[in-house]
Structures are given as C-alpha cells and as structure tokens.
C-alpha cells in the first residue's frame, strides 16, 4: 500500500505538468487579453502594461518563466489585483473549503440517510419521499433552488441572510449549504438506495438474519458498509467539486470564494490567476481520488494494492 501511494504521488508531477501546459496553451489561444477593455487604452499604455507583466515576451519564454517561478513555489501575480496568486487562493479557499466541507457533510448525511430509508422502505412511503427528493434535487438547477430559498426564507420570513458566509453563524450558513449540497445529496441518495437494495438481496444478509442478529446490526454492520463501495466511487469527485468552489452559489450569496474568483479570472483573461487556480484544482482532484482509492481498501478488505 505504501508503495502504491508513493507511486501515485509521483505520477501527479507529470499529470500536473500536462494540466498546466494544456491550460497555458488554451489560455493564449483564446482571443482577447487582460488589457482589452470596453474603453480602449492608448497603445503606449498597453505596451507598458504588457512589459510590466512580461506579456510582450515570446510565449515560449513566458511558459519557461511560469515553470521557473513554480519551481520556486511562486504561482505568479494576478494581473488584475497585482497580488500574489498564492495569497488570493489561500484567502478564497478558506471560505470555499468551509462552505464545501459543510455542504459535503450535509450531502453525505442527508444523502446516505435518505437512500438508506428509501431502501429499507422499498415501495413504501419512505421510499417515495426519498425518490421524490432525489429526483427533484437532481432536476432543479442550483440557481433555482437558491432563488426559491432566498425569496421564502430571507426576504419573506427573514430567517436567514442573503449575503456572505461566516463559519459558525447559522444565519449565513444554512442557505448556501442547502443550495450547494442538494444536488450531491440527491445523487448520493439515489446511489445509496440502489446499492443498498442490491446488497439486501445478498445471501450473507439472509445468513446474518438467520443467525439471529438484530435488524439494526444487520443493517449497520453488514448492509450499509458493503453498500458504500459504489458510493465511495463518487464521493471523491463530489468532495473535490464542492471544495473547489461553486461559481453559482458563491455569486448568488456573494461569498468570497475561489470559484467566483476563478470564473472572473477567465473572463478577465487574468493569466496568472487562471494558471495558479487550475493547478490548485488539479492537485485537489488528484489527491481526492487518491484518498478515495485508499478508503476502498479500508472499507473492503478484499481490495489490496500492490
């Protein structure tokens, strides 16, 4: 297992290099630059701006400069804010990670609970409620959910705030968490239900019941654990998506997260921030997948890596 983990980590280096290279090429292939504005700047000013940020150098040289700085732990400077990209990601990610983490927990708890209740009450009311939630949650876009929540619970009832995020302040946490976490919760609920239904038909479950085990023990010790393997497959990517930020949720609730900053960087052609954020995301996704693979082995002792 240790060797496997080390090999996976080493493979991340060429992976991240490939991601960075493709991003760099695509970024410069898109028309328009960071200083192309509605109100056109005089050429002398554009020339000085390009010189300031090394954009007047050949692409190959800009590519080399980026990786030279990266090797020294420097993700570069944001053209728009003139601040180090590392600082921008650090500040934004604190918020995004909190929101993503809370939404992830919400999605896991709600999704697994509903999926389990559905499976255990197959073709009964509990199942219908679970399936309804799973279908509605998957079908409704997050901006529709957010609008619905804001109008009812903020504007009409005044229970929660519209703006911002503050960890520990439920007025600011509830609506963004539900908005961001509902789709993954619905997806996890459906997957859990299907997986549980399949496991419940297995011989070893019948054997466990025949041995006289209490129903809760059959469910908790044998059913849920074995039903989690397919769910784990999606949990890694879900986690990565949630903690790397949702542009829609962050914009609707005006949350200062990385997702919003990343999309703005693309529209602004803020090359420094695009490169830094893309690499950061790629790293998160790579590590998330590695953690999921490790968890497989924990959950299912039959799985062993060499």
């Amino acid at each position, binding site marked *: 297992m240790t060797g496997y983990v080390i090999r996976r980590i080493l493979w991340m280096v060429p992976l991240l290099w490939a991601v960075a290279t493709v991003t760099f090429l695509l970024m410069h292939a898109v028309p328009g*630059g960071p200083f192309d504005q*509605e109100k056109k700047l005089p050429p002398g000013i554009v020339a000085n701006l390009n010189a*300031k940020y090394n954009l007047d150098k050949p692409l190959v040289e800009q590519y080399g400069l980026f990786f030279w700085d990266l090797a020294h732990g420097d993700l570069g400077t944001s053209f728009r804010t003139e601040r180090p990209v590392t600082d921008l990601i650090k500040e934004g990610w604190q918020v995004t990670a909190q929101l993503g983490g809370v939404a992830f927990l919400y999605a896991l708890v709600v999704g697994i609970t509903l999926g389990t209740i559905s499976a255990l009450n197959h073709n*009964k009311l509990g199942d219908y409620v679970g399936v309804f939630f799973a279908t509605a949650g998957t079908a409704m876009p997050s901006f529709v959910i957010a609008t619905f929540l804001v109008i009812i619970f*903020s504007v*009409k009832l*005044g229970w929660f705030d519209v703006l911002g995020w503050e960890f520990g302040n439920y007025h600011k946490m509830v609506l963004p968490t539900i908005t961001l976490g509902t789709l993954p919760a619905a997806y996890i609920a459906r997957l859990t239900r299907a997986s549980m239904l399949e496991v419940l038909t297995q011989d070893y479950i019948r054997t466990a019941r025949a041995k006289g085990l209490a129903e809760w023990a059959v469910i908790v010790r044998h059913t849920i654990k074995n039903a989690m393997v397919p769910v784990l497959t999606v949990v890694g990517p879900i986690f990565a998506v949630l903690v790397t930020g949702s542009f829609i949720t962050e914009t609707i609730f*005006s949350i*200062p997260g990385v997702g919003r900053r990343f999309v703005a960087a693309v529209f602004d052609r803020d090359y420094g921030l695009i490169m830094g954020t893309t690499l950061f995301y790629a790293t998160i996704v790579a590590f998330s997948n590695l953690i999921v693979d490790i968890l497989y082995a924990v959950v299912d002792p039959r799985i062993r890596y060499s």
Partner: protein
Amino acid sequence: MTLLKPWRFLLLALLAVAAVAAFSACGDDDSGGATNTPGGATTPAAGQRIKGGTLTVQGLEFKSLDPHYSAFPQDVSIERMLWRGLYMMNKDNVPQPMMAASMPQISTDGKTYTIKMKSGLKWSDGQPLTAKDFEAGIKRTCNPAVASQEEFVFDQSVAGCADFFAALGTADAPKTPTPAELKALEDKVGAKAQDDTTLVITLNQGQPTFTIILSMWPAFAVPTHLSRFASQTPDKTADWGVDPKGLVYNGPYILSEYKLQDSATLVPNPNWAGEIKPTLDKVVLKFIEKNDVADNAYRNGELDEAYADISNLAAVKSEFGAEYFQHAYPGVRALLFQMKHPPLDKLEVRLALSQAIDRDQLNAVLGGAYLPTTSWLPEDVGGPPPNAFQDQIGFNPTKAKDNLSKAGFPNGQGFPKLTMIVRDTPETQAQAAFFQNSFKTVLNIDVSIEPLDSPTRSARIGSGDFDLSVRSGWLQDYPDPENWFKGAFDTGGAINLGNCSDPEVDALMKKAAFNTNDTERRDQWKQVNNLIVTRLCGYTPYYNEANSWLVKPYVVGIKENSSAQDQIAGGDWIAEAWGRTK
C-alpha cells in the same frame, strides 16, 4: 405500515408545498436575526442627521487601489473616499480648492501653474502632507513601470511626461534605459515642489482644462514619508498595495478592513482637512456583482443602498416607490461603424441605419432604464438637448429607405450581409436583436449578430475586425467636452475605433484643444459634436447612460449629491456627506 397509493402520496406532497408557500406569504418580515425594512411606497424619513451609525452600500470590488494606475469606476469610487487631490470638482463640475489653498496662479502663456497648498495638512498617520507628495504623484503616473491607465491625461500636457512614459519603447522597438537614464527622464517631468507648500507644474502648452485634470486621481499625492516610497527608484517603483495597515490617507475616510471579494470597511480619517466632516462611524462597501442579489439583500435589510435591478425595472419602481431614483450618468451608448468596411464608408448607408432606429422604442424595450439621445456630447457637459439631431439622424423610416436607395441599395437589394458584434449579456443581446429587427423591417437588410465575451469583443474592436458594434460609446473621464472627443475622432487618434477621418473635424479639434478662451473653446467643441453626429463619423448615438438606485428613507447624502461625478454608488464623489437620520 399501510401502503399508500402513489396518488395519495402526490396529494400529500402538493399539500406540503402549498403549506410552505402560504406560511411564507403570511410570514413576519421582522422575524429572525435579519433586520427588515418593508419595501413599497414610503415617504423619505424626516428628521435630523444623527452622529454615528453604519451605512452598508452595494459596491463593486476594486481592481487596484493605486490612484496612479487606476481607470475603472470601482477603483476611482473608493480611491476618492480615501484620498483627495489639490482640487475637487463641485456638483456643477467646477474645480474648487481641496488640498490647495486657492485656485492656481497661471502664467500669461498658460504653461506654468503655481499652486499654494493649505498649511498644516496631515496624512492619517499624522505625518505632514507636502507639495513633494503631490510632485511624486504626478511623476508616478508618468512612470512607465507603473503602467498607468490614465497617463494620457498628462501625456500631452505636463512637460516631460510623454518622454518618461515612453522610456521602455514598444513591443516592436523595445528600449532598455539604465536607472540613471530613467532618473534623468523623471527629473525632467514638469512637476516640482518649490517648498513644502508650493508646487509648480510646467506644461508643454497652455491647457484650459488642466485644473480639472488636477482634480482627478492620477494627480493624487504619494506618501513619500513611508519607507517603501522613500526608497523607491524610477526603475523599481514601490507597490501601492491593498493592506489597510500599509497605507495612509488624506481623504475623508481610512480603509480599516478589506476582505477580498467580500467588502471594504471605511472609518472617518481624524486628520481630514475637508469642510464637510463625516458623521458616520463606518461605511461598509459590500462587493456584489449581480443586482438581483443586491436587491434581495436590500429587501432583507442587509443593504442601505443598492443598484436597482433594471431587468425588472417596472416592478422595482412599483415595489419601492420613493426609494427608487435614477440619475443620468456621463456616458453615451452608440452603434459603432467600421468605416473602412464598405458600404459603411458611405454616409447615406450610415444615415439609413441610424434613421431606422427608434430610440424611444428601444428605451421602452429596455424598461425605461436610459435616456434616448441623438447627440454624442450630453447636455450636462455642454452639449445640446438630446433630441437636437432628431431631424438629421433620428428615427424616420421614409428618410432611411430613401438614403439606402441613394446609396445604391433600393429596398435593401444587393446590400451585403453585415455582422454586429455584441457582448454576451442579456441586455446587450436584446439591443442587438432590436437593431436587427429594425434594419430588416425598415430597410429590408439582413444583419447577423455575433455575441462575444468582453475581452474578445474589445480585441476585435481594437484590431478593426468588425462591421458594427452594439453598445459602444464613451464613459466620461472628466467633465469637460474635450474628454469626449480627443483621440476618438481625430484622424489616426489612439482610440478612433470607427476610423473617422474628416479634415474639418481635425482642424476644429486642433483649435479647441488649446484655446484658452473658455467660451470660444466650448463652442468649438459643440461644433465638433455637430459635425461628427450629422456626418455619423464612426458612431450613431442612441442613449445616454443612467444609474438606477434604491436608497432607504433614513439615508441622507446619497440622493441629494448624486451627480455626473458618481462612479459606483450615488454621491460617492462626496461620500463624507453620507449619513443617517436614525
């Protein structure tokens, strides 16, 4: 458990949804932690301004806090709350002394400005604010390493500025001056502190608008007593930064907190030298890009002022009544013609297109959010009334068809297919669709629409790769007619995007640019306006910009001070006058 039939389940689900909806409709707006103020028609709160309180307004996050670099309205808005120049324009756009003790003494040839500053001025940290700081500010704007986006306001006027700014050459012909050479160029920039309170500025030639320019942010002071500015050299300029603790201020407020992508908090500057002292304890600028989000926060009592959501303007006006107000913004929107692309080089074709646009109808389609116009130069800045050119270029289908026929395309026959580039936002695409429909209905010509994101569209316009561009135009930098024409209509001008080239316009612009007789000068700019509009030299204007805001009844200083100088929030040019009555 008894198995329920699916239809009973469906009924239960519907009842549950209806119960939530009914509950919310009857809900108490004042419950919970948020403080709600009811919307709807209200009369403004009568009452005295109180000392203290916090005002939370919608803002847009600045891209830079460096006044010598900035050009964006969201930058300028906050910079003017934190710093002020030697002069400041009043509500009538007339410069008044601010850090200066009096209006400048101007030499008879108009080339030398001697400015005496008020005595005893201090930065927010208590250190003296001197003429040397203002000298450093002008030089910083001219420094190529800073790459100021507003350097053009000094480029042709302040002696030595153009040479210093061009010191690094261009991409095709780069230069690598030595630090000594850069220092020599910097020393030649015509801004010198004679003593602690006297600044002398030397111009290339007399410029009648120079005092206005001194009111602008590129002329703000640099705190040269701070170590990073004291030790900087022309080749290694210090970063202005955004860390509140690393900055000092001479404006009415101090930046006490800045949260990236979230908010900036301002508190009064104890060393502010202005006449109007802030009465608020705190101003919080919440950075919110989407106006519908801001309006919900306004409804929920989280904002005291917000932009009105103009995509739903009729409903907003009806809901909020007197809390809604609109103010003209010094900007014009126009259809841009690429005059190098036939048949747009023919005046008759441009006239036909302009006369096919019903500006009033377009404004109705956009919810009445703007002010239809046929003039490039707005009335606020010395232009004629908005309908001054109605007969020449305004909506007239008969004249439009006639002009198209004169151009050789009767009833649109043989007219080439043109493309309109447009920003990929709902509002601009609605404008483009309106024009497309108008041109088809009135002229029987086909024009396609190409939506692009902002940088791509700007790049295409900059390179001339377009036929027509929707919602082009101009947003004012400073309130003088010259700012509306210089560079945009002179042959070969740096921002002459439509390739307008008219010898009569060129000659008149040259006369007006350095005419020290103010009345004559303004009249000459009006004549330039007349020419470029009637000849549709690059543009046909269709509306003047306007800002629409919501303001709580207990807020004072925003509506009353809203003027053509607003950048982001109403009255933000004189934010020290903001306050509350409760």
